[in-house]
C-alpha cells in the first residue's frame, strides 16, 4: 500500500526561510489542527508568520511564501535544526499539502526527518554555505534523489541519505509492507525474548 507519490526527483523554485530552530509549532500552530486526520492543514501552514493577525487569513506581505515568486515553490531552504519541537506529524502533512516535496537544511530534528520520509518529503542535508549559495543564485533547483545531488546554477552539491529512506521516497514504499517481510524474524525474536524477559509480556497483569 503506497501512502504518497514517489519523489525520485524534485525540481523548481526554492523558497528561503533561513531561520535557525524553526519549530513544528511555527510550521503549524496547535490551534490550526482542527480535525482528526492528515488533511485540511495547508491553510494553517506557518499561520503565525504567514498572516497578519492570529486567526486571520490576511497575508503578511513580508513573509516569504506570500511573495508571488515563491508561492508555488516545491522546495524549502531552511536553517539549522529545522522541525524541532513537537512530534506532531501535522507539520509534515501541512508542508506536503501546501506543495513542498523537499526541505533543504543543515540539520533536522530527528522525529521531523522521520516524518518527512514516511510522507514523501525529501529531507536534504546540506551545509549552510551551500544553502546560502543556492539562495543567492535564486534560480530553479533540482534535487535528484537517485544521484543524491542538488544542482542550482553553478552550485552542484552531493548529499547523504539512508538507503532505506531513499528507497521509500524514490518508490513511495510503505514501511509496514517492508517490515512484513521480516515476519519470521519478528516471531523468532519474541519466542526468545519471552524466555529472557518474561516481565515485559503483560498478559498476567492486564
Amino acid at each position, binding site marked *: 500500500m503506497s501512502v504518497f507519490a514517489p519523489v525520485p526527483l524534485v525540481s523548481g523554485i526554492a523558497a528561503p526561510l533561513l531561520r535557525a530552530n524553526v519549530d513544528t509549532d511555527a510550521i503549524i500552530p496547535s490551534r490550526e489542527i482542527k480535525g482528526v486526520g492528515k488533511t485540511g492543514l495547508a491553510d494553517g501552514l506557518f499561520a503565525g508568520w504567514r498572516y497578519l493577525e492570529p486567526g486571520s487569513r490576511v497575508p503578511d506581505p513580508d513573509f516569504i511564501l506570500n511573495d508571488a515568486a515563491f508561492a508555488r515553490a516545491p522546495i524549502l531552504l531552511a536553517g539549522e535544526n529545522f522541525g524541532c519541537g513537537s*512530534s506532531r506529524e501535522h507539520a509534515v502533512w501541512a508542508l506536503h499539502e501546501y506543495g513542498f516535496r523537499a526541505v533543504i537544511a543543515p540539520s533536522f530534528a530527528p522525529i521531523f526527518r522521520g516524518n518527512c520520509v514516511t510522507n514523501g518529503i525529501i529531507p536534504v542535508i546540506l551545509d549552510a554555505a551551500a544553502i546560502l549559495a543556492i539562495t543567492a543564485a535564486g534560480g530553479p533547483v533540482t534535487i535528484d534523489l537517485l544521484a543524491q545531488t542538488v544542482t542550482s546554477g553553478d552550485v552542484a552539491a552531493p548529499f547523504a541519505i539512508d538507503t532505506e529512506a531513499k528507497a521509500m521516497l524514490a518508490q513511495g514504499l510503505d514501511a509496514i509492507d517492508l517490515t512484513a517481510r521480516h515476519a519470521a524474524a519478528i516471531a523468532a525474536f519474541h519466542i526468545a525474548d519471552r524466555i529472557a524477559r*518474561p516481565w515485559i509480556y503483560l498478559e498476567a497483569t492486564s
Partner: protein
Amino acid sequence: MTNSRTLFAKLWDAHVIASLGMGEDLVAIDRVFLHERTGSVALRSLAASGRCVTDPRRIFAVTDHIVDTLPGRTGTLVPGGAAFLEATREETRKAGIHLFDVEDPDQGIVHVISPELAIVLPGATLVCPDSHSCSQGALGALAWGIGSTEAEHAMATGTLRVRRPGTMRVTFSGRLGPGVTAKDMALALIATHGASGGKGHAIEFAGEAVAALDLEGRLTLCNMAAEFGAMTAFVAPDEVIFDYLKGRRYAPRGPAWDAALTAWRLLATDPGATFDREIVMDAHAVAPMMSWGVSPQDSVPIDASIPTPPYTGSSARALDYMALRPGQQLLGTPIDAAFIGSCTNSRLADLRRVAAIVRGRHVANGITAIIVPGSSAVRRAAEAEGIDRIFMDAGFDWRMSGCSLCFYAGGDGFAPGARVISSTNRNFEGRQGPGVRTHIASPETVAASAIAGAIADPRDWPPLPAPGDGKADDRAHAFTAGAEAR
C-alpha cells in the same frame, strides 16, 4: 576492553531483530503510549488501512493534551477538540487498548502516569507520538518520540525501523548549589551547546549530580533532551528507580520481579566503554536558569543580563518578539502570569518544592498564577498533604491534571503580549498563545517570580519559618542543601 559496552548498546542490542543495512535496524518495541492529539490520528489511520494492532496489551492511551483542566471538567475547551477525544475512545475500544480517560483516577500526562503505573520499565523500549517521550528514559528505558505514522507501524508490527543513533555521555560532576534543580541543569546544557547540540545522539546522563537526583529530577532532565535535538536520553537505573517501581500496577511481581531486578542491575555502562561524544558540565557552576528568547538555547543564569552579541536574523527576531533589549537584566522584569505544570515539572516533588516557597506568601497583585498537577494521582497526593491549600491560600489556581497551558490549542490561553513565566519546556513563538512571551525556568523560579510579580531569583525566597510548626527548620534545611538532593 573490547567487551565493555555502553548502557545504550545493551538496551539497543537486546531489541534488534534484523539489520536493515546502512546503520538502520528493525527494533522491537515493548510499549506504545498514545495521547488523544496525535494518537487518535494514528489509530484512525491504522483502522482505515485495514491493519490491526498485533498486541493491544502493550499499547496504552491517555487523554492529556487537550482535556479541560478547569475544576468540574467534562471534556475539552479546544474548538474541534471533542473529535480527538471521541476518535481516541472509539478506536481504543475497537482495538482493545486500555485508555486512561478523563474520569479515570489514573488519568494524567502520559510521561507522568507511565512511570506512576510502571508501564515504563528499565530496559524496555517505549515510543509515543510525543516528542517528550524521552522523559521516560529516566527509568533506564530507551524511550523516544515518533510521528503518528511510525506509531501505526509500531502498533501493526511491534517494531520500528530506526537508524542507530550515536552515543553521547553528559556528565554533571560535583553537586548542585542551593536552589538549583534538574531543570537548570538541562537549560544550562542547552544554552552552552545549542538546541541542536545533541543531534543524532542517544544521551546517557551521568555523574554525581545526576545520581543525586530523585526520580522526578531525572524525569525533568531527560524530558529536556527533546529540546537538545537528541533522539533520546536516559539514566542508568539504580535503587531509587527499583524502590519507586516496586508494587506499582504494571510492575512485575513475585519471582518475575526478582528476575527482572537481577537483569536490571546489569543495565549500566561498563567501565572502559567509550562514547561517540562526551560532555562534562560542572554542576556546582550551574545557576538557576531563565530563557530570554524563543528557543530554549536562549537561556542565561537568572542574575545575568541578556547577551550583547551582534543580533541578526533569528536572534534579533527573538528579542523583538520578547520585547527585550540586549544587555537588559532579566531580574525584576515585570510578568503577567505564572504557570507550573507540564510533563517537565508537574510531579509531586516539584509541587512540594513550590509549596515550600509559597507557604505563607501571596502571589503579587494582578498576576494570573496557575498550578496544574501532572496526573490525577499527583493531585490527590497533593490534596492529601494539604499543599493544595497552600497554593490556593497564596492565590494560585489549583486545577485538574493535563498538559493545560504548556501550549495553546485554541481554547484556554494567556492574552496576546502577556509575559508568562512557566515551568514548561518550550518558549517558542506563540507556544502559549499568539503573541504570548514565555520564559521557561524551574518551578521554584516560577513560584518566586509569581510572588514577586517580576522575574525573581528563587535563592532570594527561602521558605518562611512557620511558628509552631516543627517542620519549618527541616524545610529550610532541605532547600539550602539542594532542593532535589536525596
